[in-house]
């Protein structure tokens, strides 16, 4: 297989892993290994959370470079796992171009959660955390409804909002407002527990854990970028529910 093609495939795999929630150091490692396995003399990969740059040098000393810009993330551990398996397989068995192309295509178009599944799962998650933080049966029942509604709403709002922060602000505003209203109508007293349970759906856990893993791998820059991202998101989450409670509390006093 030509080195040019190898670079393109390695970048495809790296991009897929970064989008599905891998740490930066793992992406760099994977691309380097694949390129070296197919006979590149040198492979220099630099990646941050939103971009990957790779330069490889072939046996004749010719240098190839490719850049990828990543604009959105969608955490998907199945894809991440499969890309990881594929890269291991490529380094070990050096499959030919056609096979690699097929397998990448297969992973990219693989099974994803349907919308309905996503809604039901989020409802279950919200309920589990509401009970975890000490909610009772009534709180759990309301959390089911709100958790499902959050996912439906986020699907449509994400097309309208300019960035992740505004989206999170609006969603947490919505969560707190609904929980507060349910308390107003006398269904429950403990609306705080419902808010916490649903906020867990929005908390940037993946970004935070990946930030730490990047820093352990010696990748300070990506680590700092991701920590900033997750702290900002957390502040916007708090601000969203704050606004809802102040606003509604003011209206009904």
């Amino acid at each position: 297989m030509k080195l040019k093609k190898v670079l393109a495939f390695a970048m495809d795999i790296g991009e897929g892993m970064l989008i599905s929630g891998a740490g930066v150091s793992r992406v760099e490692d994977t691309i380097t290994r694949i390129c070296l396995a197919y006979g590149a003399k040198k492979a220099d990969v630099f990646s941050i959370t939103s971009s990957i740059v790779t330069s490889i040098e072939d046996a004749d000393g010719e240098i190839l470079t490719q850049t990828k810009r990543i604009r959105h993330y969608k955490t998907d551990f199945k894809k991440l796992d499969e890309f990881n398996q594929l890269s291991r397989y490529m380094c070990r068995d050096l499959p030919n171009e056609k096979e690699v192309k097929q397998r990448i295509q297969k992973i990219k178009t693989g099974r994803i959660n349907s919308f309905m599944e996503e809604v039901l799962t989020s409802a279950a998650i919200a309920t589990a955390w509401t009970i975890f933080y000490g909610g009772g049966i009534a709180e759990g029942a309301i959390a089911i409804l709100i958790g499902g509604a959050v996912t439906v709403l986020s699907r449509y709002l994400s097309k309208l909002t300019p960035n992740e922060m505004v989206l999170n602000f609006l969603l947490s505003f919505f969560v707190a407002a609904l929980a507060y209203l349910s308390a107003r109508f006398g269904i429950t007293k403990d609306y705080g527990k419902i808010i916490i349970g649903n906020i867990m759906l929005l908390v940037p856990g993946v970004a935070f854990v990946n930030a730490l893993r990047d820093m352990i791998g010696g990748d300070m820059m990506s680590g700092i970028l991701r920590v900033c991202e997750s702290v900002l998101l957390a502040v916007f989450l708090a601000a969203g529910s704050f606004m809802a409670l102040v606003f509604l509390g003011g209206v009904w006093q």
Partner: protein
Amino acid sequence: MIQIFASFAGSLGFALLYNLRGKKLWTAGVSGMISWAAYLFVWNQMPSGFAANLAAAAVATIYAETMARILKTPVTVFLITGIIPLVPGGNLYYTMNYVIAKEWHLFSLYGQKTMLTAIAIAAGIMVASSLYGICASIVHHYAIKNIK
């Protein structure tokens, strides 16, 4: 007891949401349960939020690293689901709540708690995975030596 079960269900839910299936799904659910059990255990020995979070994050990391090697999966998969029960979502909410109630003393108390929890989790993951990396490379080194 309810909490341990709920943490299992919650972690399982996240794994499901992130499209994990089969044996890996259950492993991910158990990681959340183990980290919360570790938290409760340390809390009973020594009631300090910082120490408990640190220990729980360390336990979750060791579990995730081990399972990732057994099942040949990136560590992130099990680490994220293991850390989720420790995330200070509750403290964040109470911090915000006390701003609304204008209780500035309690606000700063809970704000500090939230920050400390985040720092403890970070420290736990960092310490445990660095140590695990060192141990793994020592074991690896001797394994290769024996083969030769």
